[in-house]
Every structure is written in structure tokens, then in C-alpha cells.
């Protein structure tokens, strides 16, 4: 796999990532790169290892071996917090929202804004509500009040909350695992608009999607995974949906 032509503007490189669960080898040495300011798509059949790779990048799984390089420096991403510290935000496929908590609590759980001194820290509820409200309305989806519980939101609203949360931290990389899989036509269009806006603001987006039209529409670069490996990469301007399908199924060699 040659990375020489992309080395200059590469923001993230994952090399030879392996991860096993018991006897199941989910990743067998997958390597991908992401370029700065681009939407990079990750496609592949179910069980190809896309979600496992994403979970390694977002700190939920610790890779068994392999290196992750961010802006030229090798980093250890051994916890979700570590990933966030390195500027990697993720919209998990299951959204990772706590249904019993309110929208603003979900925004800030794990990195709350507090006020007070020393051990006497209390939550700055107003600051968190205000910031969550600002970030959400920036998405321009039918905005739920930030004080409502996530349990009461529609699928699209939940997606909006999860995306606004990931997009709101001024991070350099946002990973989205099938962000529109459960959405209707209008909501999908809104989410795609958000992805474009993120890209315009200089964020590198890693998009996992089963929708080839969407991949060709949004992404500039696409990686194809099969059997725990990233087997092929294409510029979306130089490929077609048919070729991607062939690469995914293995009908076409790299």
C-alpha cells in the first residue's frame, strides 16, 4: 500500500491494526489513511471489520497491535477520553446516548462544565444547557429542547443530538458510523448537509456507509474493507458504484 502520494496532507494513519475477540479475528492488519479536510468513506460488507476499526480509533477497543499516527505523531488511543483529547469524536452506530438523561446531560456527560474550587465542584448546569442549545440549533434540524429526555426524541432528533455533540468540540476528526441508516429522506439530507459543513470547516470526516450513492456524493476518498483488511482505496472521482460493489464482494481484485 503506497502512502507516499498522500503523506503531505495526511491527518490520520492507521497501520496494521489487528484486533481479536476470543477466536474471532475481526481485524487482521487493516491500514487506512485520512486526508485533511476531506470526507473519507469506509465501506465493506457486514462483518468486514468497519465498526471494529472505528471502535479502535475512538478508544472503545484497544487494538492488539498496530500503530495510529495523528498529524505525524504516533498516539495511544486506549480510552474514549483519550480519543477525545486527541480531537477524535465519534458518532457511534448506536449513538451512545443515555436515554434516561436529558439532551444537555448527554452532551456533556464525561466532560462536564463545573464551577467551584478544589473538591467542591458543582455542575454548571446553565452553561451546559446554553452551549448544548447553541450547538443543536446550529444543526438546524427540528431542534428538541435540551431539557427533554432522549427517550422522548424521534430517531432523527437523536441522530441530531449525537452529531451535534460530536461536531461541537472543535475536533479535527469526526467519525460517523452509518449516520443515516435509520433516517428518512429529509433527515438524511440534513445529516449530509451537516457532514458537508463539517468538511468546509476543515474537519476530516470518516464516514461508514452502506449507501454507495451517498459515498460518491459526499466522500473524496474511499477505503474498501473485506475480511478484516482494508483491501482497496479509490478516489471517488475515479470510481463507480459498480466497481465499489465488485471490490466489496471480491469479484474484482485490488
Amino acid at each position, binding site marked *: 500500500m503506497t502512502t507516499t502520494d498522500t503523506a503531505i496532507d495526511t491527518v490520520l494513519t492507521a497501520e496494521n491494526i489487528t484486533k481479536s475477540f476470543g477466536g474471532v479475528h475481526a481485524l487482521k492488519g487493516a491500514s487506512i489513511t485520512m486526508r485533511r479536510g476531506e470526507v473519507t468513506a469506509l465501506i465493506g460488507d457486514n462483518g468486514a471489520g468497519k465498526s471494529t476499526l472505528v471502535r479502535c480509533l475512538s478508544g*472503545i477497543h484497544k487494538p492488539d497491535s498496530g500503530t495510529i499516527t495523528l498529524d505525524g505523531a504516533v498516539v495511544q488511543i486506549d480510552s474514549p477520553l483519550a480519543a477525545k483529547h486527541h480531537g477524535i469524536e*465519534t458518532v457511534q452506530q448506536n449513538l*451512545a446516548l443515555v436515554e434516561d*438523561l436529558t439532551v444537555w446531560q448527554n452532551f456533556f456527560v464525561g*466532560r462536564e462544565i*463545573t464551577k467551584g474550587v478544589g473538591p467542591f*465542584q*458543582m455542575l454548571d448546569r446553565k452553561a451546559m444547557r446554553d452551549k448544548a442549545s447553541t450547538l443543536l440549533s446550529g444543526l438546524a434540524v427540528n431542534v428538541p429542547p435540551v431539557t427533554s429526555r432522549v427517550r422522548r426524541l424521534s430517531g432523527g432528533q437523536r441522530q441530531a443530538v449525537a452529531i451535534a455533540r460530536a461536531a461541537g468540540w472543535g475536533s479535527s476528526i469526526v467519525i460517523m458510523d452509518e449516520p443515516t441508516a435509520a433516517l428518512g429522506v429529509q433527515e438524511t439530507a440534513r445529516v449530509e448537509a451537516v457532514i458537508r459543513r463539517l468538511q468546509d470547516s476543515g474537519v476530516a470526516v470518516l464516514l461508514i456507509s452502506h449507501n454507495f450513492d451517498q459515498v460518491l456524493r459526499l466522500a473524496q476518498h474511499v477505503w474498501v474493507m473485506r475480511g478484516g483488511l482494508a483491501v482497496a482505496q479509490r478516489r471517488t472521482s475515479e470510481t463507480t458504484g459498480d466497481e465499489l460493489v465488485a471490490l466489496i464482494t471480491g469479484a474484482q481484485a485490488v
Partner: protein
Amino acid sequence: MNTMTAQPVAAPPVPRKVAASLSEAKHLSFWAENAAPVGLIVLVVVFSVLSPTFLTVGNITAMLVAAAILVVLAVAQSFVITTGGIDLSISATMTIGAVGLGLAYQAGLPFWPSAIIAILASTVIGVINGLLIAKGKVTDFIATLGTLGVATGAALILTDGKPIAVTSTELLRLTTGKLGFVPYPFVLAAIVGAVAWFVMFRTRYGLHVQAVGGSEEAAVANGVKAPRVRIAVYVWAAALAGLASLLLVARIGAAEPAINTNYLLNSIAAVVLGGVSLTGGRAKIVGPILGALLLTALSNGLTLLAVSQFYQPLAVGLVVVLAALLTRFQKR
């Protein structure tokens, strides 16, 4: 509506139509959310009508003293249950605290160092619970059932099964002192409740407790250290049980290695009455405190009415089951 005000606890099992309309579901959800305060008010009204002594200052003071231990235990249990766990060892942990206090006092230590030893002795059980559950991945039910047995046995072994008299002036002041008509034990319980409310709803730790109980997976993905949160919840619950042991020894005047199963069941019952779901995620502090007051008022009232002791567990059991049925109608 009026019939429900009279008997809110009995309301849900008798919906007129099985096909409950939406409006009635909304209606029921109100009772489900407020089972403890409504039930408490109803009990107070009923008992004060039936017994002239129920609402006297003397009896209210007696009830508050009696409720203090259960309030502290219910608050502790509420934290554990919010994480989706349960602490079956909580009353045995209190017994260990009492025994620790008794042994330290017997060995000649002054009251306050003995009290600290009591709380530390209880906390040890909490640390074991937390490690078993969060690190050992033992189911909360089994882990705390195990420590329930161990703590009960240890209390009997350490004391040879005999109560240790503790007659310190500090303890006497704790039992007999009052702030206005509010006895010191209840003042202590109220402070515990207020601090617990603040911790649960105004601090990072409380938010993490709720997040872990709501969805551990989502909480972890957002950077919450779930094992730590779980360990801490059991440690705090045990420390509170240690605090309750001071009240227990103060009340009896001796450290008894008795099993106190009633306190365990009532602490869970108070939390359920308070509208907390055993599946976790939805925190409540005031509800369980009111639940503890309700259970205390119930047994006090029945005693005043000269109802046989034998009927009291029956009454508690019925109230808890009705409350549990009611929670099905809670707004989610």
C-alpha cells in the same frame, strides 16, 4: 378523582376498563410519580382520624427517631439502585458497623474514635462489594448476598453472639437531643439526604451514576469510568450504613450482632415506594426518603391502633407491591 385521593395506593389495580384510555394513563402516571408523598399524606390523615395520639408532638418525634436509620439506608440503597445494582448486604453492613463500635468501645476507646472505626468497618464491606461487582464481574445480587452472609457471620463470631452494651454520654445525647421538635438522629438523616441530593443532581459524580445506570455502554463511550463509579457507589452505601449503625447503637444502647433483615427489605421497599426503577438510570432521593417515612408511619400507626405485630410485614408487603404496580404507569 376523589375516590383516588382517598385511596391512591389501591387505585391502579382497579382501573374500570382494562382498555385504559390515553387520558387515564396520563392520570395514572401522576399517581405513579407521586406514590410516596400521596401515600404518606393518606396514611397520616387516616391514622390521625383513627388515633388521637398519632399527630401529637411526642409521637411525631418518636416516628422521626424511628425513621432516621431507614432514611439513611434508603438514600444509600437509592444510589446503588440508580446504577442498576442492588445492595443486599446493607443491613448486615450496618451490623458490622455496630459491632465495630461495640468492640472498640469495649476496648476502652472514646466514643468518637469508636464511631470512626464503626464507619471504617462498614466501609470495608462496601469495598469488597464494589471490587467483586466492578472488577470481578460478579452479579450484584450474588456478590451482596455473599457479603450479607459473611458480614452476618463475622458479626456473630466477633461478639460471640452477645450484645455489647455501649453507654457513652455522646450516644445518649444523640438519642435524646432535639433541634426544636426534631430529634438529632433525624437531623442527621436529613443532612445525609440533602448532601445525597446535591451529589446526585449537582455534581459530576451523580451524573455519572445516572449515566452508568441508564446505559453503561453509552456512558463508557463518552468517557465515564464505569467500574470506578460502581465501586464508589457500593463504598458510599456501606459508609452510610456505618453511619446508620451509630444511630442503631444509640437507639438500642448496645451493639447487637442481630441480623436486622427488616432494615434490608425496608430499605429496598422505601426506594421502590419512592418511584425508583430497579433497572436503574432514573435517580430519586426525596422519593425514597418519603418512602422510608411512609413505612415508618405505617408501622407506627398500626402499633398505635393495637394491630398485632404479625400484620406489619403483611402491610409493608402489600404497600410495596402496590407501589411497584403503580410504577408501571410512570412516564418514561
